[in-house]
C-alpha cells in the first residue's frame, strides 16, 4: 500500500490560452512504511500540485494515482470515498491561516477527527497528544488559534493533521517562516514520529541542510518533471544541481571551500553535520 503515481500529468486551465502543464508524466512509488521523503525544486516547479494529488484533493489530468489501493483518475468515481482517503494521507498546507478558524486551539485540532466520526472524548485526547507532540503545552488548549504567533499557528495547524493519525504525513513547507530553533524542533519531531510509529513523512522544503540530514529519499521536480528520485547522498554527488535550481548543503559547501583553499585532495566533503565535518578536517589535517 501507500501512494503510487502512474504517468501522472496535471494541467491547469488558463483563460483563453488553453492550459498550463504543471506536472508532466510522473511515475513513482511512496510506501507507507517509514520513508522520509523531501520534495525539492524551484518555486513553480509543481511541488504543491504534486502533493495535492497525494490525498486526492486534485485529480490527475492524465494517468493514475493509486492511494491505499484506490485508483484515482481524471474522472470522479462515485464508488470511491475520497474523503476517507484523507484520513490515510494527511496534508498540511503551507499557510496555517487557511485552516485555523475555531474559538480555541483544542476545538480547532478536534475539527479533523470529529469530521471522521471519532468520538468527542477520543478526539479531545488526540488533540492534547498532538499539541504536546508539536511542542506546545496544555495552556494553549484554551487559547484562540487566531491570536498566536506565526510559528505557533504553524504548529497548531500541523497538530490538526497529526490528530488524524494518518499513515502518510504530507507537509507543504512546514519550516518556512520559522526560526532556526523552531525548524530543528519540527524536523526532529517528524523524525521521531517516523521512528516511533513507522509513518511515512513527505515534506516540501527549500532547505538543503534539512534535506541532507533528515531525508531518506529526495524527489527533485523541475518544470513539472521528476528529474531525480534517490538518496540525498546520490543527489549531492551529481553535477547538475544548479540546473535544477538546487544548491549544496551548508556543511558540504564549507568543506568544499576548505578542500579547495588548502588543496586537501583526500578530503571527503560529504559530511552531514558540523561535528562530522570537524572530525573530517581533523583527520585530514593530522594525516
Amino acid at each position, binding site marked *: 500500500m501507500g501512494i503510487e503515481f502512474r504517468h501522472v500529468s496535471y494541467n491547469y*486551465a488558463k483563460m483563453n490560452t488553453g492550459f498550463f502543464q504543471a506536472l508532466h508524466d510522473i511515475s513513482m512509488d511512496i510506501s507507507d512504511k517509514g520513508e522520509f521523503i523531501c520534495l525539492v525544486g524551484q518555486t513553480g516547479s509543481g511541488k504543491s500540485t504534486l502533493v495535492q494529488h497525494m490525498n486526492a484533493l486534485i485529480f490527475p489530468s492524465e494517468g493514475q494515482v493509486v492511494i491505499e489501493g484506490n485508483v484515482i483518475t481524471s474522472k470522479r468515481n462515485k464508488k470511491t470515498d475520497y*474523503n476517507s482517503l484523507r484520513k490515510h494521507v494527511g496534508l498540511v498546507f503551507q*499557510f496555517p491561516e*487557511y485552516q485555523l*478558524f475555531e474559538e480555541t486551539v483544542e476545538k480547532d485540532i478536534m*475539527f479533523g477527527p470529529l*469530521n471522521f466520526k471519532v468520538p468527542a472524548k477520543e478526539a479531545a485526547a488526540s488533540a492534547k497528544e498532538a499539541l504536546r507532540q508539536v511542542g506546545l503545552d496544555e495552556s494553549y488548549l484554551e487559547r484562540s488559534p487566531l491570536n498566536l504567533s506565526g510559528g505557533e499557528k504553524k504548529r497548531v495547524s500541523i497538530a490538526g493533521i497529526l490528530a488524524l493519525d494518518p499513515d502518510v504525513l504530507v507537509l507543504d513547507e512546514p519550516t518556512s517562516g520559522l526560526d532556526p530553533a523552531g525548524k530543528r524542533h519540527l524536523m526532529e519531531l517528524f523524525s521521531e514520529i517516523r521512528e516511533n510509529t513507522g509513518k511515512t513523512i513527505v515534506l516540501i522544503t527549500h532547505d538543503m541542510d534539512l534535506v541532507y540530514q533528515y531525508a531518506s529519499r529526495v524527489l527533485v521536480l523541475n518544470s513539472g518533471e521528476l528529474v531525480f528520485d534517490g538518496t540525498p547522498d546520490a543527489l549531492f554527488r551529481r553535477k547538475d544541481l544548479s540546473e535544477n535550481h538546487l544548491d549544496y548543503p551548508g556543511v558540504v559547501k564549507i568543506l568544499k571551500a576548505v578542500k579547495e583553499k588548502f588543496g586537501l585532495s583526500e578530503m571527503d566533503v560529504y559530511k552531514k553535520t558540523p561535528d562530522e565535518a570537524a572530525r573530517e578536517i581533523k583527520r585530514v589535517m593530522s594525516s
Partner: protein
Amino acid sequence: MKGIVIGQYVPGTGFFYKLDPRTKIAAVVILMVAVFLLKNIPQLLIALALSIVLLLVGRISIGKVLNGLKPLLVLMVFTFFFQVLFNTEGNIVWQTDFYFSLSSMLALAALTVLWRLLVPHVKFRFLLFLVYLVGAFALLHYIPSWYRFATWQFVIYSKGLEMSAFVIIRLLIIITFSTVLTLTTRPTDLTQGLEKIMRPMKFIGINSDEFALIISISLRFIPTIFDEATKIMAAQASRGADFAQGKLKNKVKQIVSLLVPMFIIAFKRSEDLADAMESRNFVPGQPRTRIYELSFRKADAVAAMFIVICLAGSIVLRILT
C-alpha cells in the same frame, strides 16, 4: 471555482475596443432608455436586428453573447410561463382541459420518479425539467380518467403570448448591450469611465474618485479571494470537511470553517494594501494622474452620432404609435 469570471473582458481589436469607456457606458444607458421607449413587438424586432448588426460590426461572436444570456434563461422561462398562465386579455388562442383523476395522478407520480432518477445522469438539467413539465401536462390531458375528481380548463390568451414575447425580446436586447460593454471593456477602464462620468455628482456629495477606487479594488480582489477560498476549501477538505455531502448541521460547521479564514485573510489583506498604498504616497481625496488618460476620438464621435439617431428614432416611434 476557476470558471467564475467577473467582468468577462475578452481581449480583441474590434470597433468597440477602440471606443472610450465613457462613450460605451453612456451608450448603453441611452440605448436602454431608447429600448424602453418602444411600444410594440415589430419595433422591438427592428431594435433586435440592429443590435445583431452591431455585434457583426464589432466582430463579436454571437456565441459569447448567448453565453452571457445563460444565467437569465431561467428568468425568461418564468416570465413566459407567468404571462401565459395569468394574462387573460385578448383573444383565446388555444384551450384544453386537464383532468385530475386517480389514473393521471399515478402516471404523474411515475413520471416524477423517472425524472428524479434521470437527473444525476443528464447534463442539461434545466432542459430535462422542461421536458418533465411538458410531459406532466401531456399526461394530465391524455391519460384516460378513472375516478376523476377535478377538471381544470387551461386557456392561453393572445395578449399573454404577446406580452411574454415583448418582455423577452426587450430583455434580450438589453443584455446584449451590457454584454458588449463588459466583453470589450477592461474592468479598470470601466471604473475609470464611471469615475469620469460620475464626476458631476460631486455637487450632491458623492465623491466619484473614491467610488471608482472602491469598485476597482473590489474587482481586483475578486479573483484573489476566489483563489484563497479554493485553497481554504482544500485545506479543510484535508481535515475531512466534506463541502458536498453531509447533514445540515455539519454543513453549517463546514461553511463556518471556510468563512472565518476567508474574512481573516481579507481583513489582513486590506490592512496590507492600505499600508502599501500609503507607503507609495497615496493620499485619499488628492487628485491623481494616470499613465493612460482617456481620450475622445473619431470612433467615439461616430458612435455618439449613432446613439443620438437611435434615441431620436425611438422617441419619434413612441409619439407616432
